[in-house]
Structures are given as structure tokens and as C-alpha cells.
């Protein structure tokens, strides 16, 4: 009898896999190298910071032992812990402290008098524990004898452990956790205002036939070219106590929420405008024709056609603006007054109090809204389907004198707001002594005699911007190429994709602080880059990685995979293809990435504030430091230098792109 073989015994049919070529393996190696870069520049530092936020300090009373001699010989050894148990002097939460905590030894002797003849012996048994006699540190485990007069000067130092104490302390300190509410309030309010204003502006640009559209577009992009501190400084000159038009505030104080929101609207406006303009530009004219033939009112058309068509754009813009405002540090620092916000708290904890652990805790708190915005954005991006089908007809605005006039005046008001902030900065920078001597001079440009690093910092900033543009563009473009063009290695590719998206969710302050913890560890073999230009470049590239990556991916997606297929059938290695075809075709996007990185490297403050060293002081940081020291006019002067540099970079970019388009993109025209 023949038996049917069970499934187990059957040999499975071989799975046919596409053979990975030598090229693919080589590409995988490159991808892993760039993934490794992202791990070192992003994942490891964040992990180091997370663990720092759990590093706590507490007084370990069991490790301190006393003997007392009241003139009748030494008493039995008794630990501070035992005394505390019997006398109930300190509650457990009073033993928790920060690494800089101090606890007087006399706390454990309620009847202590420094005039008494009593002598005290003290020793500490902790491995890394210590106590101070005045300011002298004792870290050994021997007995030390002190007279009462000296004993009163003894303080215990805490020892390190791990736990949730820092978080508990954070949420039980109203001054700290109130910042969460403040940050959310400012961010939401600024988002609402910016998105509404930008929508109106974009609507006017897209749907009217008003004049000067090109000029308005240009003016609206100005805020991208300046550090976020600059609008703060401008607002001081406009609305401060000596401001030109402070009457417009009706006695309200510019230092606080009003100033932060006004400045936030200024610096996030172009970001919102770009997204909303794109969303409005893809609307389908046929829908409007349908609305007209259905006799829908203009109002109804607006709400049933325009807004739904732009909804993803609006949502996307809101998320971007929210994220920019809540993670921004420069503006609330300059004009926030007593109004505490999360990003400034990190700075205050780290620089003001040298409390790195609490800085890490606030960073983790700030990470939550930023992460949530990031997840929401990803979700929106996925839902967004192509609205522009091949049969769509682009909307063509028709002239309407009344509507055009309204649009023109609205855009003029917004443009005036933007220009006036820039112009007032330049004016204040040239005035000799505001407001007492309004003669013009260049004294405020004498940066070398002020805090912040002087003219050298300006040179450093340009160096950083160029290096970031050069190295960043290379790393980003090849990373994107590997993700986009490689075959197989699905898991590696998707994890790389995740790593590349992550920087968008990490606030600059958080990244910078994480870098201190990771790179300043002497055990880290990469420690030597701490305090150099290299770490600034690495940090800046990483901070702005996501947008650059997406730009590169979009450009590469436009190129048919057939190019790779043809190349391999012609037995040409991929790098030859990259050099001869891909890079030239993608040149406009590559240039876009480099100008994006350049401009951001010039203006960023938050990512580098903890990382610059005196040799690598930066212009944007100098703006902050000079303002901090009260040299507001020189700060405005330096801010304007950054602005002009970015304008120049933009012009060069425009020129080169034009030239290149002629040379490499000739194939696009027939």
C-alpha cells in the first residue's frame, strides 16, 4: 500500500528570490554606514539623555556615622539614619535633592550649640560619598574629630542613584510644570493666528489678480532668513518702554505672552505660507465651475470647496507652526519676561543652575508634544491622497477689482509688519545710543569688545553653514538614494526611513543637551569631537535632516527605476549611474537642500547653544548672548549680518540654479 507522504516529508518548493547583485550589497553597506551615522548622531545621545533624567541624588543617611563626646568619653557609634528614625527630623522627600544638594550635619542634633564643649566624630562610608567642612571636601572613610564650633560648618553631600525622583520633583514644583501650560497656550494661539494670516495671504496670492504678487512672495520669505531672536529684539524697539509705537499696546507689557505670540507669528509665517500655498495651488477649477452652475454663493463655495480642498495643507501647516513655536528658545528668551516656557526652562536649569538632570527631565517633557505633533503629521501625510488627477484643470483667477483691492491692501499690511520689524532692527543697530543719542554710527558693530565671541563668531557661523551644506547635502542625498533605489533589504530600509524621519520630532535644545551627555562622556571614543566644529556640524545636519531627506526622496522618486535596470543590463556599476545621470538630473533639488541647510545653520540657536565652545562661538548664539548681557543694539546688528549673509547666499543659489538649469536640465525642454 502506498501512503501519501505527510506535509512534513514533502520538500518545499524553493522560494525564488531575486538575486541581490554585487551593486545592491555595496549599496547596503553604504546605507548601513549612513544609518550608523544616524544612530550615533541621534539615537545614542537621546538614550544617554533619557538615562540622565533618571539619575537622582539623595542623602544616604546610613552612610554617615557619628560619635559624640560630651566630656564623659565617646558614645556608641550611631548613624544619621538611626537618629532620624528615632527623632523623625527629616521626611523621606526632604532627603531627595540634586547633585548640588547640601545637608547640615547639625540637623541631626536638635540641641546643638556651637558654644558647647561637646566634641563630635564623623565618618562617611559611601563609596563615592563625601562631606564638606566649610568648603573642604572629605571623601575618605576615616573617623574625623571636630569641636562644636567646627562641627556646625559640616555639610553632607548627596550620593547618586537612579529613580523617578526628578520627575516627581518636577511635577511638584509649580514654577516648573506651569511652563507646560504656558508653552501649550502660546503654541496653540500662535498657530491659530499664523495659519489664519498665512491662509489669507496664500488665498490672495492664488485667487486674486492683484499686482506685486512676486514682491509679496519675496517679502513673506524674509523671516526664514533671520534667527528667531531677531523679531524679539525688533519688538523691544517697537513696543518696549522706549519703543517707537508702544502706545499701540494700550499700556500692556510687550515682555510676556503678547511679545512671544507676535514674534512667533513673524518667524513661522513663511513656513505656514509655503505649505498652504501649495495646498491651494492644486485645487481643481472644475469644482468651482460646478459650484457656479449649482448657484452656490461665494461664501458656500469657500466652505464646501476651498477649505476642504486645502484641509490637509491647513492641518499640516498647523502642525509645523505648533512644533516650531513650542520648541523655539530664542524668542521667549528675549521677550518672554517672566513668562516661563519649556524650552527656556531647559536653558535655565542647565546654564543657570548647572542642574543637568532636571534639564534632561524638562527635555523629556518637551519631547512629548513635539512627538505627538510628529505622529499626527505622519498620519495626515498618509491620509493625504493625490487631489490633482490628470484630468484636473488648474484654477485661473479672474480679475475682480473690489476683491483684488482687498487682497492688495491685506497683503500690504502683512508685508509692512514683516518689513517694519526688519527695518527697525537695522535702524537700531546703527543708532549710537538708543534713545538718547539718535545719531548714526557703526559703534554697535564693534563686536570684538562685547560678549558673544566677536567678529570671529560671524566667521565661524559661515564656516559652519558651508560645512553643514556640503557634508549635510552629501550624507542626506546618498542616504535618500540608498533608501529609494536599493532592491531588497526591506527591514534595513524601513528602519533607516524611521531614523531619517525622527529628527523632525526632536527639539533642537533637546538634541543639543543629549549631545552633551553622550559626547562629553570621557568613556566615549568619540569624545574628542566635543567642543569642536565637528560636533556643531554633526548636530546641525542631524537637526535639519528630515526636511532635507524628504526633498531628496521626492526628487529621486521622479526618476524611473528603469535607469537602474538599464544601467545594470549595460553592466554599469551604480556609482557610475549616480555620477553621470542621477546627480545631474537631481541637481536643482541638491542645491535646494544645501541652501536650506546653509540658511538654517546660520540662524539656529537652540541646537547649538549647549555645544559651542569659545573657539567655535556662532553669530546666532552671539545675538542671544549680547542681548542677554544687555547689548541689545549690537545683538540687532549681528542679527542683521546673518540676514544679509542669507540673502547673499540665496542670490548665489538663484544664480547657480539658473546656470545649472541651462546646462543640466536642457533635456526638460523640447
Amino acid at each position: 500500500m502506498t501512503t501519501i507522504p505527510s506535509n512534513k516529508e514533502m520538500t518545499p518548493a524553493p522560494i525564488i528570490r531575486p538575486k541581490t547583485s554585487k551593486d545592491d550589497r555595496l549599496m547596503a553597506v553604504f546605507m548601513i554606514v549612513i544609518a550608523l551615522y544616524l544612530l550615533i548622531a541621534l539615537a545614542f545621545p537621546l538614550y544617554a539623555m533619557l538615562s540622565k533624567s533618571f539619575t537622582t541624588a539623595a542623602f544616604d543617611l546610613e552612610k554617615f556615622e557619628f560619635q559624640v563626646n560630651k566630656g564623659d568619653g565617646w558614645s556608641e557609634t550611631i548613624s544619621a539614619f538611626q537618629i532620624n528614625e528615632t527623632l523623625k527630623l527629616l521626611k523621606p522627600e526632604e532627603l531627595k535633592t540634586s547633585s548640588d544638594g547640601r545637608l547640615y550635619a547639625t540637623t541631626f542634633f536638635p540641641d546643638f550649640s556651637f558654644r558647647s564643649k561637646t566634641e563630635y566624630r564623623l565618618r562617611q562610608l559611601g563609596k563615592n560619598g563625601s562631606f564638606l567642612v566649610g568648603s573642604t571636601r572629605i571623601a575618605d572613610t576615616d573617623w574625623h574629630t571636630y569641636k562644636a564650633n567646627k562641627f556646625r560648618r559640616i555639610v553632607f553631600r548627596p550620593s547618586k542613584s537612579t529613580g523617578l525622583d526628578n520627575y516627581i520633583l518636577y511635577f511638584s514644583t509649580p514654577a516648573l510644570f506651569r511652563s507646560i501650560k504656558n508653552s501649550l497656550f502660546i503654541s496653540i494661539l500662535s498657530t491659530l493666528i499664523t495659519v489664519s494670516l498665512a491662509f489669507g495671504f496664500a488665498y490672495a496670492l492664488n485667487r486674486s489678480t492683484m499686482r506685486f504678487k512676486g514682491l509679496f512672495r519675496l517679502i513673506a520669505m524674509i523671516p526664514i532668513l533671520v534667527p528667531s531672536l531677531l523679531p524679539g529684539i525688533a519688538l523691544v524697539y517697537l513696543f518696549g518702554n522706549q519703543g517707537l509705537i508702544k502706545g499701540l499696546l494700550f499700556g500692556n507689557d510687550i515682555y510676556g505672552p503678547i511679545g512671544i505670540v507676535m514674534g512667533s507669528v513673524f518667524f513661522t509665517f513663511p513656513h505656514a505660507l509655503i505649505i498652504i500655498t501649495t495646498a491651494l495651488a492644486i485645487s481643481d477649477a472644475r469644482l468651482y465651475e460646478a459650484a457656479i452652475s449649482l448657484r452656490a454663493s461665494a461664501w458656500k463655495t469657500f466652505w464646501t470647496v476651498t477649505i476642504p480642498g486645502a484641509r490637509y495643507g491647513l492641518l499640516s501647516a498647523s502642525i509645523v507652526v505648533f512644533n516650531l513655536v513650542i520648541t523655539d528658545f530664542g524668542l521667549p528668551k528675549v521677550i518672554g519676561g517672566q513668562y516661563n516656557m519649556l524650552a527656556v526652562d531647559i536653558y535655565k536649569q542647565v546654564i543657570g543652575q548647572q542642574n543637568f538632570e532636571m534639564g534632561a527631565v524638562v527635555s523629556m517633557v518637551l519631547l512629548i508634544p513635539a512627538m505627538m505633533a510628529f505622529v499626527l503629521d505622519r498620519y495626515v501625510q498618509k491620509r493625504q491622497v493625490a487631489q490633482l488627477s490628470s484630468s484636473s484643470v488648474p484654477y485661473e483667477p479672474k480679475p475682480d477689482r473690489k476683491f483684488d483691492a482687498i487682497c492688495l491692501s491685506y497683503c500690504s499690511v502683512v508685508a509692512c509688519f514683516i518689513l517694519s520689524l526688519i527695518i527697525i532692527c537695522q535702524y537700531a543697530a546703527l543708532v549710537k545710543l538708543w534713545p538718547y543719542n539718535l545719531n548714526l554710527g557703526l559703534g554697535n558693530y564693534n563686536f570684538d569688545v562685547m560678549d558673544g565671541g566677536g567678529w570671529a563668531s560671524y566667521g565661524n557661523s559661515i564656516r559652519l553653514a558651508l560645512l553643514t551644506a556640503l557634508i549635510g547635502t552629501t550624507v542626506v542625498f546618498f542616504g535618500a538614494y540608498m533608501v529609494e533605489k536599493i532592491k531588497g533589504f526591506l527591514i534595513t530600509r524601513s528602519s533607516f526611513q524611521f531614523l531619517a524621519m525622527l529628527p523632525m520630532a526632536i527639539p533642537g535644545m533637546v538634541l543639543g543637551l543629549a549631545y552633551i551627555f553622550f559626547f562629553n562622556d570621557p568613556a566615549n571614543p568619540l569624545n574628542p569631537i566635543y567642543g569642536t566644529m565637528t560636533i556643531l556640524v554633526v548636530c546641525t545636519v542631524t537637526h535639519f535632516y528630515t526636511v532635507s531627506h524628504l526633498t531628496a526622496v521626492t526628487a529621486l522618486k521622479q526618476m524611473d527605476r528603469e535607469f537602474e535596470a538599464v544601467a545594470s543590463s549595460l553592466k554599469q556599476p551604480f556609482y557610475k549611474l549616480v555620477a553621470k545621470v542621477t546627480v545631474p538630473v537631481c541637481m536643482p533639488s541638491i542645491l535646494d537642500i544645501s541652501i536650506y541647510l546653509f540658511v538654517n545653520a546660520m540662524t539656529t540657536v537652540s541646537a547649538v547653544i549647549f555645544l559651542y565652545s569659545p573657539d567655535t562661538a556662532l553669530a546666532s548664539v552671539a545675538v542671544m548672548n549680547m542681548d542677554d548681557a544687555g547689548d541689545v543694539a549690537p545683538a540687532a546688528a549681528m542679527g542683521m549680518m546673518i540676514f544679509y549673509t542669507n540673502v547673499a547666499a540665496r542670490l548665489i543659489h538663484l544664480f547657480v540654479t539658473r546656470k545649472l538649469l541651462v546646462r543640466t536640465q536642457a533635456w526638460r525642454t523640447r
Partner: protein
Amino acid sequence: MIQTILKRFVVGACIVAVSMIAIGNSALAVDLIVYTAVEAEDLPRYAATFNEDHPDINIKWVRDSTGIMTAKLLAEKNNPQADLAWGMSGSSLLIFKAEGMLHPYKPKGLENLDPKFYDSDPVPSWIGMDAYVAAICYNTVEGEKNNLKAPESWWDLTKPMYEGHVIMPNPNSSGTGFLDVSSWLQLFGEKGGWAYMDALHDNIARYTHSGSKPCKLAAAGEIPIGVSFAFRGARSKAAGAPIDVIFAKEGIGWEIEASAIMAGTDKLEAAQKFMDWTITRKAMVMYNDAYAVVGYKGVAKPVKHFPPNVDSYMIDNDFEFAANNRKRILAEWQKRYDSKSDPKKK
């Protein structure tokens, strides 16, 4: 093939090359690396004067504000980069001493210094150079505009007429701010000090991050009265600002600017030479250009735009109290004054 692969590594090589250059730059062996918080504009002059006597030692300044330098030194505790800390606030040096970060050394000529200017240990860990003193910067033009009399004492500042016209540094981020707070606690006692600050808080327009800003804001007329330090006020006055530098009659807080050798330096000999030099008469005369009070007995001459007799206003400052109670004082201050959610109305 191999050659072309190598070409692809150019990216990586670039990064490595940049790092190498950076590493190379920061590790020249003949220099003394000195961390300092002294005003940037004075540093080249100080280095030039030092090199007149010691041309063989090249000073490499690393300068930033006190808070940042202190944070930096603490962050580098296990991996020290500095050979010396020079011109840093005394309370910062007390923190470093408590962390065991300083190398005690008794410089030559120490007997010429006023004993309150150096660490009381037999071999002192830190040596003072000069002192900077708290002061009220009063803008005469804005004061007149707002009908404000010039204040004469700390308690004057709590009068209702100054409401919203006073600005001071936040002690949680500024050494000058802490100096003020600790001096009030020493002058008026623990209870009286907090009562004073409660009253003062009602008049404060806002607290600034840095210690020099209140005076510069007063100089710019942004606020009539700034609580800051005298040196800053004198400089602003010299630049033409309509301000008066006022010492409160109850007494004023002050802070030492001091220097110390960092433990673990491999250039101990040069560092000691530098320490010897920082307390020479010549160096002290140099500090006296800007600071009215210097450590060397009998050197100090009055400084332009400073009120006379600074010494008589200076309180008997207990640095140990300030250092060992700092954390507690700052937490209390934050609880009382930093948790206001709304900005102050004027």
C-alpha cells in the same frame, strides 16, 4: 573597481578629516588653557601685560559668562580641559572645591593680600583678585520723567512710587542676582530678608537672565532702575548713558573674582607661575582699572564714575553660608517669585 569604491568613501574621509583638524587645533601642548568669565574687552590687555613678565607662557583664553563657564567646568569634571580657572566668581570656585576639582597652591606674595580675599585653608585652593560690588543703576532722565526720586537704600526700592520701575537679575540664572539675594539674607536676617524680597517683588517689572542686563536696560532708558553691579554702571556712564551708580546705604553685597589651578593639570609649573603673577602688584594695578576693590593691600585707587568709599559699604560677606545654602535659597526664591503665571501688570 577598488579605486572607485575608495572614491565613494570620500564622504566619510571628509568627516574624519574635519574632526582631525579640529582635534589637532585644540591640543597644542605649549599653551596654558585658562577658563575665565572676565569681560571680553579686557582680556587681550591682561594677556599682553602677563607676557611682559612671562613671554614663554602662552595664554589660551576660554571665555564665557560665569554661569556657562561654571556649567562647562562641572560638565568636564571627569575629563578636565582647563589648566586654570581665572577671574571666576568665588562661589563657583567654592562649588569646584567641594567637588574636589581644585589643586591647592600657596602662591608667592600671598601675605600682601587682604585675608578675606583667599581661601582660609593653610594651602589655599583659590586666591582672590578683585571684588565686584552690587549697585543700583538709576536713569536720571527716565527717573525725572516718571517723578521718581533717586533711591538711597534697598528699602527705598520697596516704596509704592517705584512700582514696575525696578528690574533685577533672576538669582536662579545670574550670579549677580544670587549675590543680591544672599546679601539681603545676611543683612536683614533670614526672616527679614525674605520679607524685604516679598515687598521688593511687588515693584519688580521683571527678572532678567543676566546680571549686567538690568544696568544696561537702565542705561537705555528701558527701565528707570536696574539692580546690577557697579562696574557695569560705570562703563555705561562712561559711554554717555544718563545714569547714576548708587550704593544702598544699608550695605552692599559683593563677590570675589578669584583664580585656582584645576586638579589634574599636566602643566603645573606654568600654572603656578601664572598664579604667582595674578597676585603681583602689577596685576592688581591692572585690575584696578575696572574694579574699585582689589585684593592687594593699599593698591586700590578710586575708579571713574564709581561712588567713593566702596569699602565702607561692603558687607561682611560669608561665602561659606552662600555656597552651602545656595540650593535651599534658590529653591525658596523660585517657589516665592518664579511661579507667577501672569506677567506683572504695570
